[in-house]
């Protein structure tokens, strides 16, 4: 089941800790620099056959960079890679595959229109020229059975769920004979129950002598599946140790360098009145298929409602309907008591709805425009920024300076183009823009995705403060921990409907997990 049970299974593979077994893979003093920062600073790491080695660190620690070096997507500035005792030069993914390294990326690289077999067969050198998809089907079924990765070779990728996509990625690597498998944050797309299934797959592979590198920032996963763990912080290795018996506190201190508050203190909820209400909402997704099938949800003033669910069950479409970016084919939306169904995005914004978008870089800002212009992106048509058809740039700049100070946005000037800012500062900009006017409703979609712990903490504090001030917050997140830490009530979305709404006391990981996959709890 969810993490809890997985952790109770005994660790298999007595070989994993055996000191005599030479490492299958060793990264020695890998250094990788980008303009302005050293992403990996003399990182050394080794993995043995039959071992699951967790690579732990918060966002920005350098984990993905390291494995991109391993997979040949980046060239290291210094250091070397040793596979099976031989030094190797990995200049491209082709070399990595030849060395037996396979990668399961965090964002899957699958062609949606093609079948599973076509995706697995892509670029696969083989005897035959004709019908490569057919030839690979047998291998897919074989490997699927062996490791518990059932996948229909003829299914098209767009028909499958994220966990099935993940299986295809793993199969791609296995079909190419990967002995070393790297998984980058693999549980970020899985429901709690599916995590157990993944771990079972990894155990079988471990038993077969594969070496697994498992990137994560979640401590319970380290406890559940890893034999050893290496902690990265700011590009450097802090420590490598056996996973058994290490306390969470120690791991966190190594990851972050200080104690971090897991749960922020907050006053009990005192909700008053209606903030945001959705009634019987129906809407289609981009492909024309129904995404919302009669969804009812109510957020009251002064509370945070967390929306939990596996990606692809309608969260995106719901957020878009609520903020005026998608048409509802049926149903009603009310903001602060007023009907706003299918009004324009501008009108809904004016009605008091703040929208912190999921894709902050591509939707939340115009990267080529200045910080000041981005700060008025949503309200430029109102005074004092606009007078008639003209924009008052003096007023815009004044406002920008206030916001930069108030929300601590680190930028050289108000006229700096936004693309020069770091991800955390871009999010601060967006928060400044959306929250400064004290909106009555806040729709926050994955607001802390990809940010480090201190930025996350900052955002959580901001949201809690707004909640105390009487705003109604809808928090959409894939991070169940975040939802459980912030929400007063937890709504679970499944197949375009709200499966249930639980108070935070009732919302255990088990119950939520079951609801996320459509089972009654």
């Amino acid at each position, binding site marked *: 089941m969810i993490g809890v049970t997985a952790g109770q299974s005994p660790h298999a593979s007595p070989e994993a800790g055996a000191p005599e077994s030479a490492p299958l893979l060793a990264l020695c003093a890998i*250094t990788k*620099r*980008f*303009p*302005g*920062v*050293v*992403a990996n*600073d003399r990182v050394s790491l080794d993995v043995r056959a039959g071992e699951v080695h967790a690579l732990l660190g918060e*966002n*920005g620690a*350098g984990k*993905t*960079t390291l494995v*991109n070096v391993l997979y040949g997507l980046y060239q290291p500035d210094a250091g070397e890679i040793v596979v099976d005792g031989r030094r190797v030069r990995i200049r491209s993914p082709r070399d990595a595959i030849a060395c037996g390294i396979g990668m399961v990326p*965090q964002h899957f690289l699958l062609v949606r229109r093609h079948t599973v077999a076509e995706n697995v067969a892509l670029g696969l050198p083989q005897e035959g020229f004709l019908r490569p998809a057919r030839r690979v089907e047998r291998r897919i079924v074989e490997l699927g059975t062996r490791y518990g990765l059932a996948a229909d070779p003829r299914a098209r990728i767009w028909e499958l769920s994220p966990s099935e996509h993940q299986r295809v990625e793993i199969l791609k690597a296995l079909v190419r004979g990967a002995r070393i498998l790297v998984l*980058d*944050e693999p549980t970020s797309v899985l429901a709690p129950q599916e995590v157990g299934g993944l771990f079972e797959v990894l155990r079988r592979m471990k038993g077969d002598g594969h070496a697994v590198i498992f*990137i994560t920032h979640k401590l319970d996963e380290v406890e559940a599946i890893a034999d050893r763990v290496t902690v990265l912080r*700011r*590009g450097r290795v802090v420590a490598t140790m056996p996973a058994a018996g290490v306390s969470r506190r120690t791991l966190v201190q190594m990851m972050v360098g200080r104690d971090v508050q897991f749960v922020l203190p907050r006053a009990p909820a005192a909700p008053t009145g209606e903030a945001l209400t959705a009634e019987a909402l129906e809407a289609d997704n981009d492909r024309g298929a129904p995404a919302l099938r009669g969804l009812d949800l109510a957020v009251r003033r002064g509370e945070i409602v967390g929306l939990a669910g596996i990606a692809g069950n309608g969260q995106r479409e719901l957020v878009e309907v609520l*903020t*005026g*970016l998608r048409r509802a084919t049926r149903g009603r939306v009310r903001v602060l008591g007023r009907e706003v169904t299918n009004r*324009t*995005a*501008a009108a809904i*914004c004016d009605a008091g709805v703040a*929208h912190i*978008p999921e*894709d902050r870089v*591509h*939707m*939340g*800002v*115009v*990267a*080529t*425009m200045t910080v000041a212009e981005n700060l008025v*992106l*949503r309200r*430029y*048509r109102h005074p004092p920024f*606009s007078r008639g*058809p*003209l*924009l008052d*740039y003096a007023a815009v700049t004044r406002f920008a300076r206030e916001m930069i100070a108030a929300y601590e946005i*680190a*930028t*050289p000037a108000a006229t700096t*183009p936004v*693309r*020069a*800012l*770091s*991800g*955390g*500062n871009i999010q601060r900009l967006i928060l400044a823009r959306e929250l400064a006017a004290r909106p009555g409703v806040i729709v926050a979609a994955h607001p802390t995705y*990809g940010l480090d712990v201190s930025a996350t903490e900052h955002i959580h504090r901001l949201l809690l403060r707004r909640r105390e001030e009487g705003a109604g917050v809808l928090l959409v997140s894939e991070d169940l921990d975040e939802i459980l830490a912030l929400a007063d009530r937890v709504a679970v979305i499944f197949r375009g409907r709200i499966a249930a709404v639980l108070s935070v006391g009732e919302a255990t990981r088990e119950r939520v997990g079951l609801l996320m996959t459509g089972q009654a709890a």
Partner: protein
Amino acid sequence: MRRLGPLVLEPDPAPPPARVLGVSLLALAGAVAAAGVVFAAYGADPLYAYAVIVRGTFAGLREISEVVRRTIPLLLCGVGLALAFRAQFWNIGAEGQLLAGAVGATAVALFVPLPGPWVLVAMFAAGFATGALWGLLPTLLRLRLSVNEVLTTLMMNYIALYAVAWLIHGPWKGATQFGFAYTDTFPEAARLPLLAGTRVHWPTLAVGLALAAALAFLLARTRLGFEVRVLGQNPVAGRYAGIDPARTLLAVMVLSAGAAGLAGVGEVAGVHHKLLDPGQVSLGYGYAAIVVAWLARGSPLAAVLTATLLGAIFTSGDVLKVALQMPFRVTDVFNGLILFFLIGSERLLAVRIRWAPPAATVRVGSGLPGTPEAGGES
């Protein structure tokens, strides 16, 4: 970031204007050199050809006035396209919109009797309207059906071409012309005054300059200009910002296509005084205007300069025709080469080259806020 020995190439998000100018000049130089090769292939001495060009475009007042005359339609089409490109509306149809404007102006000139200067005002208005109308269909198709406007605007060019041909051979065939295909000559009142001693129809020039200034102001200081810029740089963020793409795009189209229509008015009312073979009404101004707008990097004010450059190129075509019997098509060779080299040189803009031999000390990253995010981090 890429290393080439002691040099490091880094992506540069905000290239300074000096570098932009430098790279543009480099691209122009490349195009000039390549054109020289083409001249040689044709059998002409490149140096002689360039000497002829310089003499023919700069030598005297008359030559310069010819350059100005050719610049006028390029300026009008070019500033319109600069606006369109800023909105990421790829209007390749300026050629057809110009012809449509010419048709509108001709209709008024020949069939709507108005007193004195009102005829000219009406002709400009009609030309703007018909030009704008000609851009309407591709815009609607893009808004409603997401049809890419590159092909549709292009198709409209060919339709306009044949429409004009039909008009001059058919219903509007001049009563007073025998054996040739053009309409009757415009009455005296419907002809634009010329600058003394030249062939420059100055009212159109004035309109062009005014439009350049107006569009520059629009982009920099108005709400619509803000919306155009946002929509052009990030359409997704534009929707999020509540900008109505339909309203914005239609406004852009009207201005852009209308501007091209005005160019058409200038050609028939200021140069030919009749509607004639479409290939003579527009010598490819609509297409050359793409180069004008691109070289100006979307700035209507810079387009004044780049239009003059392209005007000089068109005048060179005349000059080369006379001096070396080169077909006028040679201007397309220039335009194509300039555009090609411009596009090819844009990489140089996006990249900053630093001298940093490998022995340089390692700067340990601090992960401070404000430093550019490095690659894909997780």
